[in-house]
């Protein structure tokens, strides 16, 4: 059947075409290739929506399209897997990409940036990589585009390469994620070698093979199948931790704010960082086989959520606050997935993509308004001068803080609910829950600290008194995302559904194969595989639900309220002094950067220099030593060559006599 899915490859290939066009002809195109990118991403969005409709119509797609390398035991291929999850993600990615392209015209073109050809080409390549990653039907293809996404982030973060900081941040981003990808690649290799397949779904998927191996009680390399699956899962998780900026590989993300703000919106909020969490969701069936791996995911996520939220509290740069909130929010998603809340995690992934893109683009708008000033202490009072920016930004902030009824509330609440019901059965998860809950308070605080400092109070600088005007291409994307931040929560109103009994958990049905689906990639199947036991407070789901919801909302409002008290004044003062010792620790991000820089320049580099000295002195020393010995030896030998004929004659005679004696003794003449 010639259906929607025949066009699936075009979703990724259109931005690739935009990349080629912008790279080759960008300088000659109007807007330096922006239109090519907008057309391509709009096309991708249209096709993605078509995929969504097709999946809604009960279809799904899992096809191998191209054999990359053919071997005897395993053939590596490229293929496309369109199921509810990937169809949803395709729409998110292409939508955000389209809006970012539009916004870029206002942020980059109108601001007279140079190197726009490069910018749009890299943006196209990035969109291509991300879309192809989302569509990947096997782990190798996922890794390939995962890495390409990393390359694009390197290029885009380092866009302003003439500065010192941007190239350094770009390098750090690539290197830190590369460290994670090392484990990922090892995981890909190991999974391929162990199970002979890398497909996510279908008859020959590595998930099925792993489940079969566990059932059959096989052993691999001296480990039981369960342990081995856990090891493999954790190896892949290394890549996730790197890309999704989880502790301890989160350090690159705040630095990555060196890139243009549009890039931050595209890469570091809505899509690239999402790649890690998306990967966990993509192969959730595999993680479901290993309770240990799930628990580690949950704890990494919960810890990161809290850890990053505390650092966000003391930042002065508007983009830095957003950066730490991103890390923190991805921690929530990991927590959700780790406690078996597949739907909750994906739900938050979706909501976060919208409201974080909104916040970053809003921050971009603020930066335009402020004539490229990012320090929040130099802003203030923008509320009245830029109402569109203010209200959309506020919508994003409310969603981020998790205030009812904005989208973030619903998904975050669901994650915390999933965590607490698991924690009530297995108390260790209560620790993770507590960390997640505490982070809610900090989130509410730093979010509204940012809003109040930026938009409320009196303007604190000339730039804030006389903001730069904004064009339609800035406002339109903000409006679209603002609406989405408000209403996206409707997709899965789980608490309402449970309280009222109305069936409005659309996303859960969507991910559970109510419409189109690929076998084995269903929410209910994951739940069955993981087999996590849950319990409720006083045995009642309703009480637990209300208690958890009220607690989370209360903390979020508490945080926001504290920010209101401290910062919603005409002349806000820095209150960080009150933190005492903790202030320096937080400002220095718990010295994580110092630690990693020390690892690079304090450990690795001296080690490399020592190796170099060893190489030069010992190994090459031996080589040169051999030549010195032979030179020295021949230096001694050549002294025989005196140039005096008499000596030669004497040597000849001596040699002759010696020979005579030798043969004499040997031949027995003297007996």
């Amino acid at each position, binding site marked *: 059947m010639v259906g929607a899915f025949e066009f699936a490859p075009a979703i990724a290939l259109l931005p690739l075409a935009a990349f080629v066009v912008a790279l080759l002809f960008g300088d000659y195109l109007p807007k330096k290739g922006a239109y090519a990118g907008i057309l391509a991403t709009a096309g991708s969005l249209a096709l993605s929506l078509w995929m969504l409709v097709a999946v809604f119509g009960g279809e799904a797609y899992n096809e191998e399209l191209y054999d990359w390398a053919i071997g005897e035991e395993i053939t590596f291929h490229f293929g496309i897997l369109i199921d509810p999850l990937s169809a949803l993600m395709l729409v998110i990615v292409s939508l955000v990409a389209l809006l970012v392209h539009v916004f870029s015209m206002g942020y980059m073109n109108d601001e007279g940036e140079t190197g726009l050809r490069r910018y749009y080409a890299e943006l196209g390549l990035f969109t291509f990589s991300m879309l192809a990653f989302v569509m990947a039907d096997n782990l190798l293809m996922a890794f390939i585009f995962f890495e390409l996404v990393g390359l694009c982030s390197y290029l885009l973060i380092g866009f302003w390469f003439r500065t010192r900081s941007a190239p350094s941040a770009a390098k750090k981003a690539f290197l830190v994620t590369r460290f994670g990808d090392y484990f990922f690649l090892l995981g890909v290799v190991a999974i391929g070698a162990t199970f002979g397949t890398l497909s996510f779904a279908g008859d020959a998927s590595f998930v099925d093979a792993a489940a079969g191996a566990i059932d059959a009680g096989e052993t691999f390399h001296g480990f039981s199948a369960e342990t081995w699956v856990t090891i493999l899962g954790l190896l892949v998780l290394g890549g996730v931790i790197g890309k999704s900026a989880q502790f301890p590989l989160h350090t690159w993300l705040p630095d990555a704010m060196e890139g243009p703000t549009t890039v931050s919106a595209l890469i570091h909020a809505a899509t690239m960082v999402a790649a890690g969490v998306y990967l966990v969701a993509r192969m959730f069936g595999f993680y479901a086989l290993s309770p240990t791996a799930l628990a580690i995911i949950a704890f990494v996520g919960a810890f990161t959520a809290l850890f990053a939220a505390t650092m966000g509290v003391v930042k002065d740069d508007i983009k830095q606050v957003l950066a730490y909130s991103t890390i923190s929010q991805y921690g929530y998603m990991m927590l959700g997935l780790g406690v078996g809340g597949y739907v909750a995690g994906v739900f938050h992934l979706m909501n976060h993509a919208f409201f974080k893109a909104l916040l970053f683009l809003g921050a971009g708008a603020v930066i335009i308004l402020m004539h490229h000033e990012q320090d929040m202490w130099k802003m203030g009072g923008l509320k009245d001068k830029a109402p569109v920016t203010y209200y959309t930004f506020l919508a994003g902030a409310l969603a981020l803080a998790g205030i009812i009824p904005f989208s973030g509330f619903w998904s975050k609440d669901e994650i915390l609910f999933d965590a607490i019901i698991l924690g009530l059965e297995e108390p260790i998860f209560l620790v993770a829950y507590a960390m997640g809950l505490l982070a809610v308070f900090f989130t509410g605080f730093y979010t509204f600290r940012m809003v109040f400092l930026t938009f409320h109070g009196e303007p604190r600088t000339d730039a804030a008194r006389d903001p730069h005007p904004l064009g339609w291409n800035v406002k339109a994307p903000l409006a679209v995302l603002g609406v989405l931040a408000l209403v996206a929560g409707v997709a899965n109103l789980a608490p309402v559904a449970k309280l009222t009994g109305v069936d409005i958990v659309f996303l859960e049905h969507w991910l559970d194969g109510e419409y189109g689906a690929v076998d084995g990639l269903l929410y209910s199947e994951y739940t069955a595989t993981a087999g996590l036991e849950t319990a409720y407070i006083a045995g009642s789901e309703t009480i637990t639900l209300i208690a958890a919801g009220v607690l989370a909302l209360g903390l979020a409002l508490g945080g926001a309220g504290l920010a209101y008290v401290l910062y919603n004044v005409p002349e806000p003062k820095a209150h960080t002094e009150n933190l005492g010792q903790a202030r320096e620790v937080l400002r220095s991000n718990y010295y994580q950067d110092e630690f990693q820089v020390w690892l690079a320049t304090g450990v690795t580099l001296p080690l490399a220099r020592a190796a170099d000295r060893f190489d030069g002195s010992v190994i090459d020393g031996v080589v040169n030593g051999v030549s010195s010995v032979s030179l020295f030896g021949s230096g001694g030998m*050549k*002294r025989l060559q*005196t*140039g*005096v*004929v*008499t000596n030669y*004659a*004497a040597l000849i005679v001596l040699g002759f006599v010696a020979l005579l004696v030798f043969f004499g003794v040997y031949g027995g003449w003297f007996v």
Partner: protein
Amino acid sequence: MTVGIEYYVLLSAALFCIGLFGVLTRRNALMFLMSVELMLNAANINLIAFAFYHGNLTGQVFALFTMALAAAEVAVGLGIILVLYRNFRDVDVTVPSAMRW
């Protein structure tokens, strides 16, 4: 009564050793040449003595050849010595040492 072959050999060995001694100790190129002549003649004595001893003429013919060779050698040798003298104002063989390291 004929002289025993061993005396010829002894004579020739003595002559050879005198020549050799000359080659090893003298620095004057002319003395060198003379010493070489002595050694050649020692060989000649051997050749003739053994020819006599075996009763054929091969050795004597060889001795004639050797004399001719010695004459040629002297001619070349003197030529070299002349060149040496011209270049170094001396016939000391240790002076020209360009052929060494």
